[in-house]
């Protein structure tokens, strides 16, 4: 439920006139990211939660952004606050066939 708690914090961080930052949940489930493509805005928080028995990571593999949640055990979560606009491919370092895309746009 950690991602739920992030919601008001993210909203506060967005500032007065700017759109409220959102929290987006991505499930690591059945050896895939769900959703496989996610579009967010700068300041939004992406939270990955591992629903599988085996560990997973969400690790940027393209673009200027670099993030790595590290290995997340079953039920663990990792997060990334979206920054510069762009398209970022990411993968699970343990299971390179798990691939997904994060689109950050103004």
């Amino acid at each position, binding site marked *: 439920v950690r991602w739920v708690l992030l919601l008001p914090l993210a909203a506060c961080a967005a500032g007065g006139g700017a759109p409220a930052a959102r929290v987006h949940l991505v499930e690591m489930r*059945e*050896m895939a990211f769900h959703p496989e493509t996610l579009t967010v805005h700068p300041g939004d928080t992406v939270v990955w939660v591992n629903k*599988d*028995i*085996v*560990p997973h990571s969400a690790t940027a593999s393209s673009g200027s952004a670099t993030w790595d949640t590290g*290995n997340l*055990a*079953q039920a663990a979560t990792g997060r990334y606050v979206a920054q510069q606009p762009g398209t970022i491919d990411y993968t699970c*370092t*343990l*299971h*390179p*066939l*798990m691939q997904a895309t994060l689109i950050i746009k103004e």
Partner: protein
Amino acid sequence: MLHAVLLAAAFVVQGSAPAPKPAPAPDLSDPEVAHVAVTANAIDIDLAKYALTRTRNAEVRQFANTMITDHSAVNQQAAALAGRLGVTPADNQVSQSLLAGAAQARGSLESLRGAAFDRAYLDREIGYHQAVLDAIDGLLVPTTDNAELKKLLTDVRPAIAAHLAHAKQLRGNLGSQTGSR
């Protein structure tokens, strides 16, 4: 059917040992089945660690590390299940057979070097994971009544399928020669 399901979990963590056949499960007691799982896990970790000392291929190393990580996680689930069922591991013929098979498999790998080693290791992994999938789909899931055990199998299956796909991809990158050449 409890025995068959736990044996499947044991085979899952066995790693590169000879591919299991979906034959009828041996008539083992629950403590013996638990021992099989623990033994298979130890075999898998040891063999994967051995592979890491032999291969210089970065992708094969990554694969071996993933096998250690994933099958350890699966084994933790199997151990937790055994714990809930109050099972204390007891040595048995299946465990001994697994150990003998692992020693034989390791012996065959010891004679190989470089890319030949990598191919043989991946060939073994492909055959093994395919056999486990066949056993899960064709025998274990259809005949398991216990909802918790069925869920364990269902939860494990995607990881096994992903391992198989991963191994096939890497094997394809290494060319068409068989591992023994």
